[in-house]
């Protein structure tokens, strides 16, 4: 009979921790997703393993509530290309094609900075996990971070597992290990904040490839502003239209 209260206590404790993780993640998300509906101008710089510049890309990202994102490529090499992400469903419009293509989550991963890295700006709705404990923020750091171990709760996400270290007080993201479906470490992320002592938003995410070419991708959030796009912009067939972005 004594087992029942113990079991209930364990269950309640586990549930409380799960709720804690969700709360922490929601707080962490606000450092990238500073409003529920957002327009973000993003600059990507990829450097080779030896530090030489490889390529530069510009994107306008409309990150909207309900796991909806529209990515408009702005660089000359990709001008006219668009990617729409609605939950676990993805479409691609290639320049000049006038035909939106359904793509699989696997095709979404194309490129050094995958579209998922650019378009996904929150974790709370896609991941659940546990608090591993307090750990140094990185090997050289003296301050301690909270280490969260997260597993994807949805099928369409770019990374299946994330080991995330966040600040103890404000829960700002500090670094993350990003694992793909095969549980291989794909990238390591570092987050650069606007004010190191009292951070309010992520200025830059630095992704170091761990699989093949060991390139480093700098994802810089140049400009954020709250913006809710009209519902028709999130219709896949609307991708062929060119509405004014400003």
């Amino acid at each position, binding site marked *: 009979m004594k087992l029942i209260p113990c079991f209930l206590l364990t269950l309640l404790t586990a549930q409380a921790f799960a709720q804690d993780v969700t709360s922490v993640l929601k707080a962490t998300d606000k450092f990238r997703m500073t409003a529920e509906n957002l327009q973000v101008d993003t600059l990507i710089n990829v450097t080779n393993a030896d530090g030489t510049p490889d*390529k530069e890309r510009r994107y306008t990202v409309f990150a909207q509530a309900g796991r909806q994102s529209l990515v408009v490529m702005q660089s*000359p090499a990709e001008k006219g290309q668009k990617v729409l992400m609605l939950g676990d469903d993805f479409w691609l419009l290639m320049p*000049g094609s006038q*035909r939106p293509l*359904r793509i699989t989550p*696997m095709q979404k991963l194309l490129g050094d900075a995958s579209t998922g890295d650019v378009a996904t700006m929150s974790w709370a709705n896609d991941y659940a996990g546990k608090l591993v404990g307090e750990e140094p923020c990185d090997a050289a750091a003296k301050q301690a971070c909270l280490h969260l171990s997260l597993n994807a709760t949805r*099928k369409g996400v770019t990374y299946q597992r994330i080991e995330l270290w966040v600040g103890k007080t404000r829960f700002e993201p500090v670094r993350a290990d990003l694992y793909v*479906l095969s549980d291989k470490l794909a990238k390591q992320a570092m987050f650069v904040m606007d004010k190191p002592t009292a951070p309010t938003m992520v200025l830059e995410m630095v992704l170091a490839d761990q699989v093949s070419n060991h390139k480093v991708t700098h994802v810089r959030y140049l400009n954020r502003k709250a913006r809710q796009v009209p519902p*028709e912009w999130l219709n896949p067939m609307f991708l062929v239209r*060119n509405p004014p972005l400003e």
Partner: protein
Amino acid sequence: MAAQRFTMLLLAACAAAQAQDAEPQLSGQVRAQWDGVHANTAGPLAAAHTLQAGMATLPVNGVMLETELRASGKGITSVLTLQQQRLDDNAINSRAWVNELFASHDAGAWQFSAGKKIVSWDVGYGYRPNDMVQQETRRTLVSSTPEGRPMLLAEHFDADTAWSLVAVNPSASMNARDAQEPALAARLYQRFGAADAYGFARLGARTGASAGAALAWVATEALELHSSVRFSKHIDSQSMDPNTIALVAQNPWQPSTAQNVTQWLIGGTWTSPSQLSLLTEVWWDGSAPSDAQWNNWSQRNHQLSALAALGAPAAAVAGNLAWQAQSLGLSQNLRRSNVFVRLSWQKDPWKPSLDLLYTPADQGRVVTAALTWQGDRMQVQGGVRVVGGPAAAVLAQLPAKQLAYVALTWTF
């Protein structure tokens, strides 16, 4: 009068579009391309050339400079192409054309366009039977912007549904054929979670009604499946009079209309975590010449060659053989049944690909190997295409046996 009406509508649409507030944008690309061609020694064109040099124009090497300019703003979109081409040692041939020039009006969920515009609807890669407004050339070596059609377009969008209604070639003659035929066309799109469903309808001024449907479905994390089907009461084509025998004084291939035509495609794309993609498609094009028509074609080729051996005038036989070769460029698909397989790998900045088009009816094939390098502004593409199969295969008798190309594209 019809052209004037269309111009008036276009001007009215332009006036409405002027009210739209959009920042003007200018972009484009310049592409230099070299094509190296190895002419086929088989087929009716080669036979015509052997009999009488100069009677038939064989494919030759060429260089080309193509500039594409894109401008948009104030509700107006335009795409203009300037091309300079030099084939072998001939003089430079220059031409320019407008790919798109249309005015758009944004009324929220309703969107309107008028002018020359590109509209692509279907879901396939190698073949798109439901591109009812215009049929693009598929499986090109280097992709380029197609040329749009004059149209009036109204579309409505909500979260999961889209309607498109289009009057294409509204100012063309009611007797115009093929892509110039005036027609009304409609598309209904509905999203069902992981699947996109489409319904299509077209009413041609001369060819009458046709209807189609398409589906694209993301079945798993790595697998996408798609299919299309279309039925047409009439489709414009060209055919040879089956009673044509011996030498004739005019091209026996004349415009005709195929009846009760079915076209379909089924295919899928599988992508691995390492970005290796395999596309496989199988399609049937009922508008392509039938097996019986190709048999007649083949018999006539033999008959003409035999006539030459019997002493018939070489120029007349060569001319008739050259007309036979024209049939190789009359339809999107040469044979009705087709299989297409494409293997590609994306490893930034490289993208190699290898594809095969196979026609089971005569075991003809076209193999293409290509490599693309993509930089920030520069793209370099190169590849080789080879046709083959048994001697009697239609694809094996195409004018070019091998085609190599290199293209440098700079975007701005």
